[in-house]
């Protein structure tokens, strides 16, 4: 089945130690999103790619970076994780359809739960 896969499901890192989360998709969607979700809260969009075009949210900390080497893969890099970065990180994809690609449903992976020691 076509899907969005996030690895690992659980990640533990030390305060200040860089960490990379990965996302892959077999849907061949050209839009990929990264969200941060804290307990009992809404998923918060960090950034998204439309093809290779990177779109950063204004309030996403500089500590968060992303790479998309090809259509299938997208990475979230947290350069110096702080305790406040402990959260579930969700990757999603959608099919771009021109300017208003928000009309397309998003397909989510099961997330990576990040803990900071």
């Amino acid at each position: 089945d076509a899907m969005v896969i996030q690895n690992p499901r659980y990640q533990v890192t030390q305060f200040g130690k860089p960490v990379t989360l990965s996302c892959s998709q077999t849907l061949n969607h050209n839009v990929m999103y990264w969200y941060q979700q804290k307990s009992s809260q809404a998923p918060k969009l960090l950034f998204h790619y439309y093809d290779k075009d990177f779109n950063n949210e204004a309030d996403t900390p500089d500590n968060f970076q992303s790479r998309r080497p090809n259509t299938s893969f997208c990475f979230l890099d947290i350069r110096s994780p702080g305790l406040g970065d402990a959260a579930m990180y969700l990757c999603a994809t959608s099919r771009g359809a021109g300017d208003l690609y928000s009309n397309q449903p998003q397909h989510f992976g099961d997330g990576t739960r990040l803990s900071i020691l």
Partner: protein
Amino acid sequence: SQQGEEDPQALSIQEGENATMNCSYKTSINNLQWYRQNSGRGLVHLILIRSNEREKHSGRLRVTLDTSKKSSSLLITASRAADTASYFCATAFNTNAGKSTFGDGTTLTVKP
């Protein structure tokens, strides 16, 4: 904030009953989507309703949209224990092509 707001925050019902969740927003939208999230999992898309639509159905789900009141509702009929999850509305605003903003969700518990 452009974020949609769900109401109630939590809802507990018996199996077989109907569950209704509401979402309100503040600015004009292009579309509104409803998602389900089971504990510890990703979100699953349920229904997308466009701004020019008033009602959509999918199985036991019924979504309505009232753009004059800037609100939407999700009705789950004949609920099952497996419907226990958090439900989020996501609004796509005309000025933010490509992005949907999620509300804080309604946590639904269906007791067997």
